[in-house]
């Protein structure tokens, strides 16, 4: 079974996404801030990383930097708010993220994209 690391500080969103991905048969590991996210990337060896951008301690861009350095082949999906700066989104794409989903979002749509990436 594929393992997905979800880095999201919003408890409700993470709970919902986790529930949806578990339904599709994935193992999900949820952490609520950037530091825990980096630790999990190092120790858990996930098959996919889903990360928010604005988070405590370390933001999504720092996490993507770290993931690209430590696990260059692990696909990353960025889950972010619409209002966030264009420059952040561009930087995320330049770092080679696989997909970008903006909030408000449909968890079913996210699940479809996860399925496509991990196929």
């Amino acid at each position: 079974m594929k393992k997905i690391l979800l880095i999201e500080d919003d408890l409700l969103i993470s709970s919902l996404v986790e529930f949806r991905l578990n339904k599709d048969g994935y193992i999900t590991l949820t952490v609520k801030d950037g530091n825990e996210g980096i630790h999990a990337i190092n120790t858990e060896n996930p098959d996919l990383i889903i990360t928010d951008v604005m988070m405590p301690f370390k933001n999504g861009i720092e996490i993507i930097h770290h993931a690209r350095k430590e696990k260059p082949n692990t696909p990353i999906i960025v889950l972010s708010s619409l209002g966030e700066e264009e420059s952040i989104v561009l930087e995320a794409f330049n770092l080679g993220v696989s997909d970008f989903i903006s909030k408000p979002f449909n968890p079913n749509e996210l699940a479809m994209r996860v399925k496509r990436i991990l196929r």
Partner: protein
Amino acid sequence: MSFVGKRILGVLLILIFGSTTAFCQEKTYFSDSTSFFEFLSNQEQVPGLKFRFTLPANFQLPAKDTAIWNRADLGMWYSNSIDSISQLKKFRSGLDSILASSANFQYLIYDEPSTEAAASEFVSALLRNNDIFPAEKKNINSQDLVLLAQDSPFQPGFNVGFGYFSDFKIFMIALIITVFFLIAGGMIFFMILFKSRRNRREQLRSDFEKEISSPLSQILFNLSLEEIKNLPNEEIEIYFPAHRLSNKLFKEVLIENIISLNKKMKGDFKDKLKALFKRLGLYKISESKVNSKKWDAIVSGLIQINEMDLEEFLPLVKKHLNSPNFHIRTNAAATLLNLSREVDLSFLKNQKYPLSNWQQMNYLRIIKYLYPTRKLLMVSLFDSENITVRLFGYKLVRMVGRVDLVEKIGGIATKASDEEKIEILKTIQVLGVPSYTTLINSSMQSTNDKLSRQAIKAAGSLGDKSSEKMILELLAQNRRFEIKMLLMESLKKLNYESFKTYVLNEEDQDTQAIYHHLEDPLLSYV
């Protein structure tokens, strides 16, 4: 009075009355010189206190006595210092009658000559501080007890109980210090109390959030919209136990979470969340909040009604449209616009309070989002007595492109204020509606700088021959660089030939600089 209050009062009374004993002890020990000397006689010796006799400078001292008398700097004779009363008496008895009658007695405190009053105070201070203790009376028998009692000075009874009250300053200081400590203590107590209550509340909120997230996910992913709408009570209890749903804080957290998710979700999840909100009866809380007297509760209720599409509460929302509170009326208007079947802005007509730029922008955002699918009724805005509402109307015509209303606002312009004319001219210019040259030309001549500038800009797009003529007249009169540039720009747009002729005839530096600027393809839009 509470138990704590009684204790505090008790301590306060002890502080005030208990300390009065010390006050009584501060009385003078010796009422006169006789009692002082009697005390010294009985005491025999007092540390730091000595005695001596002095003789005047002109006294003819017999040669035999010069061994025990010394002469001071000023010529005065003085005896050696005497430590005790017995020695003093012995010395005095040894003097002959001439010497005894001329000698003066003197106290020495730490070898410094002092008066009897100072010596008395010195000994009193020693007694008060317990540095010395009165010696027991010698040769006292039972028959002398009355005499002994007379030695103790009488202390009046009324001084004992009300020492602090009788001394107003001390009482006030004690009172202020006591009140200060009481207030400080009270504040600390209440801060700790509030902090602990808040922490407990935050902890509960966090626990409830964790408790809510799982059932919410299950409901949203496992149940269809119809199933949520018809969810039986027994099944609701499986997700949210009855004792939890009767808890006010739990319901508040649930509402916040549903609304938060509604903002972050797309698609059928929004409908499911709204259906769940209604099925759980959470709208009753929204209703009670809107009817509350607290402004923040009303705003919170309005937001809930807006987010959860509770159309049935629109009559309640309408009550707050003219509220004196900015946040209430803004949220009420936003809710009404969002939930009404048509965008009817007639409620703004009688708005008593000015519409801020932020409010106008907020309403415009909602209207622009709704306008393509809903009917927009906005003519009444121009009949409002509130100038900010009329201004909002002119801007709205421009923003949503309602060309059909240009005639209406063009008619208003003749009687309108300069501020309104500026917005009307902007609207006419943006929508490109011709046949308002009279308004444009008259406004170009206005003494109001902002209005004339706007009219000059509009003349470039919508002016005619008469406008061109007026521009040339204004150019002939105007020496200000900025206005001249606007006029030349409009003239160039209106009639390029006329513009070229003007430039050829005007050789001044400003005209040539503006001409080169306008003709430069890179600078012409700067």
